[in-house]
């Protein structure tokens, strides 16, 4: 299989040392930036930055929504517990009418 000789996307006269993992464009040593162990072109790096920012914003807002939800729901959950204890106590008071105790 013949080795494909490719030139840098920005420099016609320079050999490409690799391709950008995002734009897939062949890039020379000068055009490539190694980040987290992989090669990026300048355009690719910009796209990555934008994606990361968007993801962290989405993460932040989903976290904020989660906290808001927890703040709203918590009192209801606490009240549900109160109702459970209150109903159980009343149930046991009612149960005594059956004189269960005499069975033991």
């Amino acid at each position, binding site marked *: 299989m013949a080795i494909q000789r490719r030139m840098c996307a920005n420099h016609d006269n320079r050999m490409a040392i690799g391709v950008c993992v995002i734009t897939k464009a062949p890039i020379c040593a000068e055009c490539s930036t190694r980040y987290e162990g992989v090669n990026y072109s300048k355009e690719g790096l910009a796209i990555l930055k934008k994606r990361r920012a968007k993801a962290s914003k989405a993460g932040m807002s989903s976290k904020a929504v989660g906290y808001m939800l927890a703040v709203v729901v918590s009192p209801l*959950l*606490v009240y549900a*517990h109160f109702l459970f*204890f209150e109903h159980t106590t009343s149930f*046991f008071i009612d149960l*005594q009418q059956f004189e269960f*105790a005499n069975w*033991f």
Partner: protein
Amino acid sequence: MGTAIQAHFETSRAPGALSSMDSAAEYLRRNLAALLPLYVVAMLPFSAIMIATIDFVTSEYRAMTVLTSWLLVLATLWRWAWLAFLQRRVQTDIRGGEPHRIRGRLHSILFVRLVASVCATWGSFIIAPGLYGFLIGGMTTPLYLEPSDRPTAQIKRVISWITSSHMRLLKILTSLGFLYFISLICLYALIRIVVGTLLPSFLGIDPSDMGFTLSSWTGILVVSYLVGLIFDLYWAVLSVMIFYDLQSRRLAPDLRVRIRGLRNSSSS
């Protein structure tokens, strides 16, 4: 080499459903002195209010139920917070190393416990949510203390673990329930024998004087509660064991697949 690793995994799968119950009992026996102070702190307010509630119940003092119910809610939150410290100790002993940080995670633990507990109480009318709530409630602390970027994803994972190991977990829960009732019945029988025959014949005490401890509502409820405490402490330890048991069962098949992949790639 490959077969040796595989053989190891085949045998590590072998322990039966109740093996985590054995290891929890063994752990509790060895570490009771260290766990008991934490457990007493966790349960003291709850127990005091519970005994008062039982007293109000048997005296049919309905006016107090609103107050005691709110106090029980507060004592429950206190109980969960301290059980988190107790379970952290168990978790640290199991995985070794430094204990995980609780600060900053306690509010999440309490929130998930609230949700799980609503499922375990009101949800138990339709059974399945009750079981999930009960199991997740016990595993909340180890789950949230285990380092993870997204606890919500972890919760989903634990729900899927519970679903895939439901037979194993049902066996554990039914054995626990069975043990609880057996120990209650044995204890009542013992009390009856002591109060009914031993005390009057050997010590000349009239059983009708202490009859209330035997057959009254107060006696039945208090004894059931006290026996329940032992099982509650046991469950706090057992649920951490179950958490790691489910995790390893979940991870073992993944590892097996990876080992198979390694062997295939090296032979080709």
